[in-house]
């Protein structure tokens, strides 16, 4: 079904291309849109300055590619897409794209802008042979609320342009503590991504989660609590699908854990408890040269910069709890860091919908173009867009979900919760939609029939209002689809 929609969308873009042959900029845009339909999902990583965006990106890739630094670091929007061999392409605002030499220091890719300043660069494209990038294009953005206003403006302009649909299909927004700036930005993103308030494409990450609890070993547990509070926060719930605490540095370190580091951790873990705790009192103490230090000064400094105080504490306590080898340690650390939870979330909510999200972004961009620069014949394309939006069920599911997120559904509480679940609010799998994860297909089928009866009754009830009937229609259609699958 989705591929039909994709074909239709494709056809619409091609139809529009014929109309705009005269305009270079429009043609370029339409070419891009056409390409975008073929590409994987565009997932942007955004957040206020120093939230750990590049670190998280590295963790997701499992390689330290994006440069990270103590100071503000990412200044240009950077795209990471799949390629067979590493490549860097720089797209200036003016002039043709330039190929740059791939130069890595300490694993991290160094981009030399040459004679251009950050303002002149529209984006940097990095091609990388990483499996993760096959299912999604990752976009690293400069921080919002950056002290250099223009850096932060570049991000806002890219993700949430005032007057045109954004370039990202979905967004991972990193927050540290709920900041008014964050809410403002997410709202802006929802407004544009939505076009007309349809949003289910943002997930918030409570980043640097280990620092909330001052790096104590139970930090992530309290971070989870904070995240839950944010999720319940009414204002926030309408902006993001969920809040997931992630300790980015630990995740990045674990994904790239080396055998030598494992050995170092083991040495630390073998120390007697008092001794180890004395070393870990502060970052300064840990790296300070002294007699009671066990490892090389350089090794300790390296461990600290790669894992942070919390990471070192976590690794040693995991080893003491019985972790035997480096891959086991890496696995457990990734699990603890919250990266797995984030990945599961993306796999459950964004990847299955990637075609739909993409089509929606493309249609929005196309509609924007058609409305801004009308030509003879654009009305028929516009009608096509409208038809596609109305007939494509996954698009309608999406819009219902965002309606539920933004304003709530015109239904009784119980029904509203069920409706969100059935249209895929918690995941698109049939069992998840029916809230019967471990049930047999037959049981699910029965349940679907029962629900269908319920919703049909509700739709036909004389007291049900017009808006509620619309919701019922979408829910029934989803149920029918589930029925046809089982």
């Amino acid at each position, binding site marked *: 079904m989705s591929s039909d929609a994709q074909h239709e969308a494709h056809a619409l873009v091609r139809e529009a291309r014929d109309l705009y042959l005269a305009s270079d900029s429009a043609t370029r845009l339409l070419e891009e849109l056409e390409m975008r339909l073929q590409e994987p999902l565009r997932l942007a990583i955004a957040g206020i300055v120093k939230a750990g965006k590049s670190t998280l990106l590295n963790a997701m890739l499992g390689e330290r590619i994006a440069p990270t630094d103590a100071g503000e670091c990412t200044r240009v929007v950077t795209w990471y897409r799949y390629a067979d061999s590493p490549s860097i392409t720089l797209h200036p605002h003016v002039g043709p794209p330039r190929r740059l030499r791939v130069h890595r220091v300490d694993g991290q890719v160094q981009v030399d802008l040459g004679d251009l300043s950050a303002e002149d660069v529209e984006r940097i494209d990095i091609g990388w042979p990483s499996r993760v990038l096959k299912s999604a294009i990752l976009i690293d953005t400069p921080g919002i609320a950056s002290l250099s206003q223009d850096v932060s403006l570049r991000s806002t302009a890219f993700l949430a342009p005032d007057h045109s649909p954004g370039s990202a299909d979905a967004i991972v927004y990193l927050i540290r503590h709920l900041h008014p700036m964050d809410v403002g930005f997410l709202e802006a993103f929802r407004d544009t991504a939505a076009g007309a308030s349809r949003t289910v494409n943002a997930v918030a990450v409570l980043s640097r989660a280990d620092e909330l609890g001052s790096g104590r070993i139970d930090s992530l547990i309290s971070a989870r609590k904070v995240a839950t509070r944010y999720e319940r926060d009414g204002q926030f719930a309408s902006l993001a699908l969920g809040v997931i605490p992630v300790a980015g540095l630990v995740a990045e370190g674990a994904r790239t854990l080396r055998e030598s580091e494992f050995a170092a951790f083991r040495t630390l873990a073998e120390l007697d408890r008092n001794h180890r705790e004395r070393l870990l*009192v502060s*970052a300064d103490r840990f790296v300070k040269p002294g007699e009671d230090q066990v490892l090389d000064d350089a090794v300790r400094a390296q461990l600290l910069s790669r894992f942070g105080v919390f990471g070192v504490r976590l690794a040693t306590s995991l080893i003491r709890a019985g972790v035997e080898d480096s891959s086991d340690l890496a696995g457990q650390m990734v699990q603890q860091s919250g990266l797995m939870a984030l990945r599961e979330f993306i796999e459950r909510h964004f990847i299955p919908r990637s075609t739909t999200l993409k089509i929606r972004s493309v249609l929005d961009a196309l509609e924007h173009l058609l409305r801004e620069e009308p030509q003879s014949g654009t009305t028929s394309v516009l009608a096509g867009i409208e038809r596609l939006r109305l007939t494509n069920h996954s698009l309608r599911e999406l819009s219902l979900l965002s309606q539920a997120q933004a*304003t709530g559904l015109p239904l009784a509480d119980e029904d509203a919760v069920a409706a969100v679940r059935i249209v895929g609010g918690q995941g698109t799998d049939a069992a998840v939609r029916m809230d019967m994860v471990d049930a047999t297909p037959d049981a699910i089928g029965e349940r679907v029939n029962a629900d269908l009866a319920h919703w049909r009754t509700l739709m036909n009830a004389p007291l049900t209002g017009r808006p509620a009937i619309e919701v019922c229609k979408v829910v029934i259609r989803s149920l029918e689809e589930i029925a046809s699958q089982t």
Partner: protein
Amino acid sequence: MTGSTSNSRTPEKRGSSGQVAERPPTVAAAVDEHANNQLAELIETVARAASSMGRSDLVQRLDHTHERLVDPNVRVIVIGEFKQGKSKLVNAIVNAPVCPIDDDIATSVPTTIGYGAQPGAWVIKVRENKESHDPEVYREAIPIDSLAQYVSELGNANNEQGIRAAEVLLPREILRGGLRLIDSPGVGGMDSAHALTTLSALASAHAVLLVSDASQEYTEPEMQLFRHAMRVSPNVAAVLAKTDLYPEWRAIKKIDRNHLKELGEVPLFAVSSDLRLLAATENSSELNDESGFPKLVAHLRADILGQAELIGARGAVHDITFVLDQITVSLRSELTVLLHPEDTPRLITELEITKAKLEEFRSRSSRWNTTLNDGIADLIADMDYDLRDRLRRVMREAEESIDEGDPGPIWEQITEWVDQRVATAISETFVWTDERSRWLTEEVAELFAQDRNTLPTIEVAGTNDLLDVVDPLPAVGDGKLGAGEKIYIGVRGSYGGVLMMGLATGLIGLPLINPLSLLVGVLVGRRAYREDMGNRLMRRRMEAKGIVRRYIDEVTFQVGKELRDRMRTVQRTIRDHFTGIGDEMNRSLGEALQAARQSADRFTEDRDQRVAQLQGQLRQLEQWRGQMPELPPPAPVKEVSSR
């Protein structure tokens, strides 16, 4: 806990002596407790002399001086964004777990920590007075270990208990000199209403510690906070917290220092509260040094408390000199008449002329009085205009956005946006008025000092050689030391002085800015709005605009009133202060005249005795004058940059 023992070991003493070495030795004398005690004794002696001469007005003045000297009540407010470690910093400074700490947002109410021989805690609440309908402030004692239930977000979410502030007294050496630390709720960007509470508290504080953790360099909202703080408070310092957690804190510190350079001289201290608290439990001075706190504590003592004490001492010297001068005037004119009876008519004439001039000086038409009255009137008018202008702009923008679409679905965002914009507008006006009123205070003080110097000094031939020790009557206040600085204390004192008074202006002073009341306004509006949801779009827009307009109108009215009242308080404080000085001078001159007239008729045998008595008294006064410590002239406060 063991904190008290580590405190008595006072690593801060070492620190403060390190600072002292960089300063002229006289400062050390002023900061030195001994010198202060001497001054306090001198005040008492002079007060006794004044009281024996029946000058109760001067005694009262000296009493106030004494109070200020003993307890300068230096308020240091700790501000910063959420979760930067403000409460923990306060705890670490006093080495006691007073302020509640949580991984989620903790502090919801400002908490003041001051010195008390016995530990104790209070919360300050407001209740409606049934008779006068004015809000009434009252204190309620609470067990000190249950403070968290009152001031934290957990125990008192959204401040549902209606607590305005909390106060804790602790027997800690560092607080003894009159230092008050104020832990404030986190500020989330300058837009939020929280920020306003903080901002109005800033105005009543002597110094500000702006806390940011070492996880990242300053963000734009933080720099904005710095800018505001520097406009409102004379003494701002930056604290880089949690250095134990971040290996790169030195790099961050360097970047931050560069950011701070753009703002001016702001000392920056890198500290780790966890290390300091650990140092207290393990009694390890090495850890304490590593925590970076000795430097911060030295700054609190030398640069904040020390400066305040210096200003206090200067004020005391100024007051004593003033009182001595006042007493001297009548004694000297009496002595002149007794020694040179032939000069009596001339002396009386001169005294009368001076008195007439003083009358003029005291009158409402005097320069300083006119400047003050005009200045306040202008200020109120400008403030009114400024506030209206800003709020009208908000209203216009709100109306535009309502017109652009259907206000129904986005009503919540609109109200929130309006809230934020209104809060920003008010805080801008607030900071601006605060600045202007301070400027006006100094202007008036300067005029006052100038005019007073033009008053003729009473030069009487032949008396000087009788009293060789006596310098010619020194001009009261040497211009720069000027009333300006003193009034500054006066005004600050009255804002931050007594607890109630300080709260009345600082926190309750702007009740409407309180997020709660803002919400009420919007909620009322929202209800009225919902009822009409079924109406047509045009009608909805009209309704929405009406609500916003009514709301902004209400805010303009209430905030305008608050700010006007604030200005009036400033005006009254300044006027009372200077009028008081004028009254005292007037009385001195009156007594001098009376003494001169009376002694003209005195019998001869009495005379010699009286002359001896007067000379003795005058000599005594001069001796006291000589006992006063010499203080450095006032200089810009921020001269020491930390390293």
